[in-house]
């Protein structure tokens, strides 16, 4: 049996940490941009870049409320994103089991 390839969108340290952090929330819950940034210790620019890539793939959804300085962005893992992380975890398990 051939092991599944590791999803390149998740298999990058920063994006793996983003997806893993959001997966710890109950299904459907979202996390504010500032709390996520605080937890991961990434710069805003770096975090935005990774979030965009994950959102473009349908793994995340973001929602912004308010305007200007009062605006608040929330990020949540989609079902597709949760499934992608499960597949990635299974692929890792297969790879490591074969080592």
């Amino acid at each position: 049996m051939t092991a599944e390839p590791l999803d390149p969108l998740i298999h990058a340290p920063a994006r793996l940490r983003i997806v893993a952090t959001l997966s710890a929330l109950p299904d459907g819950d979202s996390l504010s941009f500032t709390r996520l940034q605080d937890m991961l210790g990434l710069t805003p620019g770096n975090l935005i870049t990774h979030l965009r890539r994950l959102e473009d793939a349908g793994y995340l959804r973001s929602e912004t409320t308010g305007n200007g300085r009062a605006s608040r962005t929330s990020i949540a893992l989609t079902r597709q994103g949760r499934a992608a992380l499960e597949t990635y975890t299974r692929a890792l398990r297969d790879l490591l089991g074969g080592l």
Partner: protein
Amino acid sequence: MQGTNDIDQPAKADDGDGLDPREAAQLLARTQREAQRQFDLSPAWLTVVTGAVVLVAYGALWLSTRGQHPYEGPSLGVVGLVYAGVAVAIAASVKIYRRATSGVRGPSFSQQRGEGIAILVSFVLGSPVLQGAMKHYGASDAIVYGVIPAAAPLIVVGTTVLGIAAAKSDRRQFGAALAVVVAGVAAAFAGPSGAWLVAGVGLFIGMVGYAAADVLRQRRAPVRA
């Protein structure tokens, strides 16, 4: 990503080149464990500390009523100590809750609020209503101020939590709640003074068991690296 107009550095999108599977597994496990710790509404240490406070408080109630013939109930000083312990435990829980839920939104909030209201109502109404009814029908102080306030909260609140845990298929919470209900039933037959001891030990075992199961769950890595 609108609303995050604070880009202050050139964005760098790292890729997974050089990240071997073992490193990835370790990073995944570490990140999930840290995130679960930060989002945890009832961390294991707080559950154990609260369990110890409960054990000391119920132990003090037992010591202050042991050997009373006829039973008169615990002294006011001990009752004050119990209320102080409960107040400290509630204050610590509120602080942890606020920190854990900072920046978090979603459907789990309304569910937690509903669960909290159900537990509060069963706690506030369960034992006092039974005590009032028993007093009204002429039951002795041993029943009204001994057996019922020691055993009833464990049975009433424990059963409420049992239902919540069953609805969520949460086996850890279900097991802990079942232990508390069983302790409440045992306390109901342990006599007015012994009821406090049995209830305190039962609550302590239920809480420590829940904390231990929680720690084991969090230590279970998604992938063994």
